[in-house]
């Protein structure tokens, strides 16, 4: 039973293109995240959102933007794709709330983006 769905497993785009990566979760989680994963660097947080229309920058937001118009959907946007944005992109969601202990993140299967 898939709970966090990323729209594409593999994507190839050209330099300068505007790229949309879509993520949908069906667990009614408040928090959603976008990470990128590169060899030797682990997972790095790009942006996250703790509510509809709310967003906060993570550790490496440059070159990216996000959109969260509905609770279940969190989109990552590459305004003008560059080759150094070739990476595995992972979406995750997590419940939150004061006093509510979660089991942590639920991740999607990832989108491997290649920018040529």
């Amino acid at each position: 039973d898939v709970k966090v769905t990323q729209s594409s497993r593999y994507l190839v785009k050209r330099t300068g293109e505007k790229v949309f990566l879509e993520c949908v979760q069906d667990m009614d989680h408040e928090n959603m995240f976008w990470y990128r994963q590169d060899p030797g660097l682990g997972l790095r947080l790009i942006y996250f959102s703790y509510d509809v229309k709310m967003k906060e920058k993570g550790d490496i937001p440059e070159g990216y933007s996000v959109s969260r118009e509905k609770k279940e959907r969190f989109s990552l946007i590459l305004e003008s794709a560059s080759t150094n944005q070739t990476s595995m992109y992972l979406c995750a969601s997590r419940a939150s709330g004061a006093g509510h202990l979660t089991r942590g993140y639920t991740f999607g299967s990832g989108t491997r983006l290649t920018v040529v």
Partner: protein
Amino acid sequence: LAKTTQPISMDSYEGQEVNITCSHNNIATNDYITWYQQFPSQGPRFIIQGYKTKVTNEVASLFIPADRKSSTLSLPRVSLSDTAVYYCLVGDNRDSSASKIIFGSGTRLSIRP
């Protein structure tokens, strides 16, 4: 921020018990310790979480000493399918601020026949 340190890689053989230790010297009072497993071309998945002492589930055990400055993930009788990257995370799961939870580079565990 509670940063974690864990070995870059480990090797073991089928049927052995594997212990992966994570250091988190500046863990905060409200922080929990969570371990994730990641297979190639997949997102990480939750394995186990604990606060202190010992936690056991159907997949693994988590040992946390009294000072909580480290933790050990124990995988009993590993098989080839346990080959994966294992991440140790420390953070307050009740806090909505994701920036306080850091994924390091993880430990790449390789299991041989």
